[in-house]
C-alpha cells in the first residue's frame, strides 16, 4: 500500500487569473497632460484611435476563429504628483475617450503599482530581479541590486565604485551584454531611498504595470491587484484618489484586465521609459507555475504567446504636436 502525506503550508498552490488576448493601453496621464486641459486629452485620444483599431485587428487575426478578448486600460499618475480628483477627472476622461470612439474598460492608479490592497507589487518584483550576468560572473560577486540600479551589461570600471579602492583604475567603456559589435548600454535607476522611505522610479513602476497587465504576479500564490467594479450604483467618483481602488473596472461587460500580451499606445517621449521597462522585464525571474499556467492555457486556445516576457509587450509611439 502506498501512503501519501501532505502538509498544506509545505506545499504551495498557485491560483490562475482570467486572461484576455490583449491588454490595450490607451494612455498614461501625468500632471502636465492634465494641466494642458481637455483639448490635450482629445488630441491624444484622436491619435491613439487608429493604433487601437489596428491592434484589435491584429489580435483578431492571431486569435483565429475565436472572438478576440481585448480589454482597454488607462493609467493615471497619483504617485509622483497628486493632481485633480477622481470626481473631477474620471468623467472628463471617459467623455473625451468616448468622443473619439474609445472605451476605457479599466482605470488604474500608478500608486497601485507600488502598494495595492496591502500588497507591494513593486517590492515583490524587486525580489524577483535576477541580473543578467556580464561575461566572467561566477557567483562570487554580490548582487548589485542593493544599489538600486540595473543595467544591460558591464559598467565602466571607473564608475563602478568599490573596486576603485584597490588603486588607480583606468577608464574603460561600458559594454552591453550580447551587443552586436557596438553597445547600447543602459543603466536604469529603480528607486531611491529618502527620509520618507523608498520612492520607486517611473520606469520600474511601468515595468510592474506591464507585469500586472500580463497577469504574471502572485503573492503566496494569490493574484495581485484585482479589479473592483465601479458601476452606476457606486455613484459618483470620490473626491480623493486614496478612496478610489487601485484598479477599477468601468465597463461591466469588459474582457478580463490581464492578458497574454500588452499593447501600449504612447507619446514618443515615453520611449526611454519603455526601453528601461524592457530592460527590467528581461531580468525578472517569474514564478515557474504562473508561466506554465499561462503557456498551457494559451496552448489550449491555440494562441501563440512568446516564451520571453519582454516579447509579450508591444508598443506604438506617436509624435506629439
Amino acid at each position, binding site marked *: 500500500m502506498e501512503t501519501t502525506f501532505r502538509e498544506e503550508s509545505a506545499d504551495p498552490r498557485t491560483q490562475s487569473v482570467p486572461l484576455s488576448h490583449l491588454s490595450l493601453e490607451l494612455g498614461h496621464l501625468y500632471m502636465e497632460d492634465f494641466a494642458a486641459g481637455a483639448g490635450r486629452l482629445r488630441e491624444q485620444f484622436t491619435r491613439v484611435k487608429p493604433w487601437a483599431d489596428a491592434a484589435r485587428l491584429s489580435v483578431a487575426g492571431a486569435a483565429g476563429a475565436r472572438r478576440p478578448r481585448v480589454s482597454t486600460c488607462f493609467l493615471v499618475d497619483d504617485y509622483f504628483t497628486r493632481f485633480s480628483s477622481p470626481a473631477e477627472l474620471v468623467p472628463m476622461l471617459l467623455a473625451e475617450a468616448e468622443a473619439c470612439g474609445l472605451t476605457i474598460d479599466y482605470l488604474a492608479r500608478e500608486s497601485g503599482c507600488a502598494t495595492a490592497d496591502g500588497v507591494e507589487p513593486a517590492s515583490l518584483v524587486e525580489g524577483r530581479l535576477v541580473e543578467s550576468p556580464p561575461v566572467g560572473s561566477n557567483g562570487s560577486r554580490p548582487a548589485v541590486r542593493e544599489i538600486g540600479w540595473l543595467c544591460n551589461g558591464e559598467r565602466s570600471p571607473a564608475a563602478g565604485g568599490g573596486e576603485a579602492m584597490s588603486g588607480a583604475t583606468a577608464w574603460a567603456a561600458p559594454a552591453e551584454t*550580447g551587443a552586436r559589435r557596438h553597445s547600447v548600454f543602459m543603466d536604469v535607476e529603480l528607486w531611491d531611498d529618502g527620509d520618507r522611505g523608498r520612492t520607486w522610479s517611473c520606469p520600474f513602476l511601468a515595468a510592474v504595470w506591464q507585469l500586472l497587465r500580463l497577469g504574471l504576479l502572485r503573492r503566496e500564490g494569490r493574484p495581485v491587484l484585482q479589479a473592483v467594479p465601479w458601476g452606476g450604483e457606486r455613484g459618483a467618483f470620490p473626491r480623493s484618489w486614496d478612496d478610489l481602488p487601485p484598479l477599477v473596472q468601468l465597463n461591466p461587460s469588459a474582457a478580463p484586465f490581464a492578458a497574454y500580451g500588452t499593447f501600449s499606445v504612447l507619446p514618443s517621449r515615453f520611449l526611454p521609459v519603455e526601453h528601461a521597462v524592457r530592460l527590467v522585464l528581461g531580468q525578472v525571474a517569474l*514564478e515557474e507555475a504562473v508561466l506554465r499556467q499561462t503557456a498551457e492555457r494559451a496552448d489550449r486556445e491555440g494562441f501563440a504567446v512568446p516564451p520571453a516576457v519582454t516579447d509579450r509587450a508591444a508598443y506604438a509611439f506617436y509624435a506629439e504636436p
Partner: protein
Amino acid sequence: MTGGAGEGPQAFVCGEVRTCLLQTSASLPRAEAVRLLQLRSDEAVRFSERPNMYAVSPEVLTGVDCALPAATGSRVRAVGTVRARAVLTEGRVLQATARLSSPVSGADRRLPWGHYLVRPGVVQPLGRLSVPDVAAGFLGARPAGPDRHAAATVDLGAIAERLLARVLGQPLLDRRAPFKSRRTRLRWFAVHAADGQGPPAAEFTVAADGLRTLWISAAGLDAAEIAGFCEELALHDWLLTTLIRMVDRSRLGSTAGPEAVLALRPAVDHLLHLWMPGARTGARLAPLWDGLERHPGFTRQWQTLVQRIRDQLALQAIPFRCEA
C-alpha cells in the same frame, strides 16, 4: 526533471551545502523561523512539522556566465542561473544550498537572458562538455588560498555563503550561540544514470580541510530530490562532527565529576533530538541512506556517542541520589 523546458535531459546536477548552528541562544519557534527565511515578500516560507520542524526559504537566483570547473583544465563556458535556498531544521541548524543542473550540450553562443530566466537553476554550456571531466573538476581538491583558476569557474560556495550571511545578518537573532561549532561544507555532484542500472550509487568523502564531497549516480535525475537528500546528509554529517568535537572537548573519560557533564549539556539541550536520518528522503533515494549507514555507519557512531553521554549523565546522578 528541473527546468528541462522541453529540451534534452539534464546530464548532471551539482551543488554545495553549507551547514551551521543558528547564532541564537534558543531555537527559533515557528513564527520567527518563517520571518527569518522570508527572503522575498511574494513567496511564503514552506514549513513542515512532520517528522520534525523544517522551514525552507523561497529560492534566490543568481546569474552566472563563466567557465565550469574541469579536471583536465579544459574551459567550457556556461551561462544560466544558480538557485539557492536556506533551510532551518528544528529552529536550530541553518543550511544554505546553491545548485545548478546542466545538459551535456547547448547553443554555441550566449542567448538572450530571457532564455535562461525561464530555466531557473539550469546552466547551459556553450558547446559540449564532458560530464566526468566537470565532475572531477568540481569535486577535486582545490589549492587553499587565492587561486586564479578557481576564481574564474562557477563558485557555488560563494553563493551559498552569501545567502547564509544574509540570513544570519538579521536583527531577529541574538547572536548568542549556546556552544561553539564549525561550519561544514558539502560539495556534491549527481550524474544521470541510464535506466535499468539498478539502485542509485554514492561515494562520500571527508577531506582533511573540512570539505565533504559526494558523488551520486541516479536514474531519473530529480534535482530537487537530490538537493534535499544532500541537505539531509550535510545536516547529519554536521551533527556528528559537532558532537564528536563536543565530546572531545569535554575530555569525557579523563575528567571526573560534573565538568564533563556541564560541557556536554548543550548537546542534550540542542542536538540529540535532531538525529533523524532519511526523514525527508524519498523512496527512490532511500537506498543511498542504507548504503551510508552500512559504511561509514553514521547512526552507529552517533548512537555510541549518545550512549556515552547518557551513561556519563547517569553516573553523575547516582551520588546525588545516594545522598538524598
